């Protein structure tokens, strides 16, 4: 039995990697993937605690999260396509219309 801390650590690592990707990359697709990583990190937490307490709630929640992630990717790709159409690229630093 692996103690819960290690799963937490694993998920924290994944989450921070996703965050790192968002903070350092400019490609919108990389953003999408980083967000997937962060969501998965959350899922690991859910499942780990579900196991910790012997309660299924966490697993059901993770299920929902997976569905949500799928839809989020769909929306995200829609946004990326619009971005691509309007700015002729997927570089998020180009889309600065909402600047001051």
């Amino acid at each position, binding site marked *: 039995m692996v103690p819960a801390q290690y799963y937490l650590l694993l998920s924290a690592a994944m989450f921070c990697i996703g*965050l790192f990707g*968002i903070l350092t990359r*400019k490609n919108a697709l990389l953003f999408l993937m980083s967000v997937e990583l962060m969501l998965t990190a959350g899922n690991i937490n859910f499942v780990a605690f579900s196991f910790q307490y012997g309660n299924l709630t966490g697993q059901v929640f993770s299920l929902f999260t997976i569905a949500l992630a799928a839809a989020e990717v769909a929306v995200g790709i829609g946004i990326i396509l619009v971005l691509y159409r309007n700015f002729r690229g997927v570089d998020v*630093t180009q*889309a600065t219309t*909402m*600047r001051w």
Partner: protein
Amino acid sequence: MAAFDYAPAIALLPFASFVIALFAGRFLPKRGALAGILATAGSLVLSIWMALSVAAGNTYNEALYTFVTAQGINLHLGVLIDPLAALMLIIVSLVALLVHVFSLGYMNDEGEPGLPRYYAGLGLFSASMLGFVIADNLFMAFMFFEMVGLCSWLLIGHWYRDDAPPSAAKKAFLVTRFGDYFFLVGVVAVLATFGSATFAGEESFPGLAETALGEGGADAVSTFGFAPETWFAIVGLLILGGVIGKSAQFPLHTWLPDAMEGPTPVSALIHAATMVAAGVYLVARMYGFYALLPTVLAIIAFVGGFTALFAATMGVVKREIKQVLAYSTISQYGYMMLALGAGGYVAAPFHLMTHAFFKALLFLGAGAVIIAMHHNENMWDMGGLKDRMPVTYWTFLAGSLALAGIFPFAGFWSKDEVLYEALIHGLGSSPLLLGAYAMGLLAVPITAFYTFRMVLLTFHGEPRTDTAENPHGVGWSVKTPLVVLGVLAVTAGFINMLPVQKLLGIEGIDFLHEWLDHGFEGVTAHHYGDLTGYASGYIGGESVTVLLGVVVSLGLALAGAGLAYALYSGSDPDAHTDRLGDAKTVLMNNYYQDEYQVWLADATARVARAADTFDQGIIDGPVNGVSSVSLVSGSRIKRVQTGIVTNYAALLSLGLVALLVVLGLLGGWF
């Protein structure tokens, strides 16, 4: 009660003429004059009908339209018709009608510009004053009081292209407004104290005040920590501020002589029936309140007496005919205030009425003279007009005799009653009143003197200029009002022949006393007599006192008139006023009251500037500071909005880290 259903129409008819003259005046044959004449004639007819109903013993007190009722305070428009209001309605609508007719000759025939505006102003003026007269509560009275002030501003400044009229109009408006501030505070104070501002009826504030001053009644009203007597005196003085402004009492009288810059019919309307009368009428209207306050009554009497004397002295040296009349107006309203302060509730409306007739007559007569003289008002340029305009002369003479108080003209009866009331009440209870009486008495010969100086200079002797040699003729529209008013100036005094009754013992010829003694309980002359608490004192019996008063005042008046005749009756009289020396300079400059008020205004302006600096620097400073700090910091901080998602995410994460650290440190996670 059918008559009273039409009571609002008295004020609404002139208002309709205002609207008609304003919007359609330029298309009408007489530029709105006919609408005004019809409207005021209708008002006069309705007023007489009201008076007949009142004479039949009816009274009317109804709230017509309620603005707001909250927390026991009721603001509404209403109509109160009692003997006093009915009397005043007839005076106002009659004078307004005659002024409208006179304006045909004074304005239309002279081809003045802006006639629709003029008639609109007259209509609104009449409407405001009539609305003021029928007001049943102090709040409504205040509204119409202000409208009267507004209309005076409009009309005095009628010839706005010249320099003087606009500034005179502004002065009239501002000076009366200054008094009205106190009035406004007084209205609020009355509402806050009594929760009701009606003049008559169950919830009337004079009645409530009377109860409050009685045994154990002080709990019913909120007097804000003062003793009821003190507080009521304060409220009374506040309202008196408005009265002093509007009725041109010292020290707020300075606007009235300047108001002569307006057209002469307007002067007649302002001084005889509407604006100036409003102040005195207001005091009479709420006399039940003032009667409870001996201190305030004494102040009123003293201010009145002083004003009567003070203004009369200034009238002595004036060269323009309208200026003389202006100061005589101030002086005569001083008499009315003296009467009110001395407990002469009947004497004041009586003098108001006779004065309205003879002063309107004098102003209209002066207007006729001014027409004749091609708008030259200097009396030294006139002379000898007696033979050239006889109708004007004889009516003007009647008015002058009334003003001077010569038996048996109207002014004699009313002025005598004013002085008589002051005398007996002064003898009976208050020595202070005797001082006011003395001043009033002293003003009598001066009044007679300047009146006859005016008459003699204008109409007698030889013509001193070519214009006076061949005066411009005047038409029927000028003469008709003069004749009507001339008859009234002779006869109006007979409605209240108190001295005759007292001396000869003929009962029942003091009609005005009886007239003002019926109506609502609590607003009758008798009730007021009980409230004031003035005792009457006599010198050797009532008849002797009456006779003494009559003889003294008549003798003084005749002496003043005789002096004027002696000095100015020649064919080419000298300017005797030069003999007064420095005193003349002082009098010509109106005791430097204007300069004094200008100085006062300058001092006030300095205070205002200091306050402005304070406001700009200390009040606005932080406000502006906050806004400029927000602006500057906004223009800096908005650069955070780079539009680049990465930066937002970085800031978000930074915040999250900081939050976690803080929470961790606080919660002991580490």
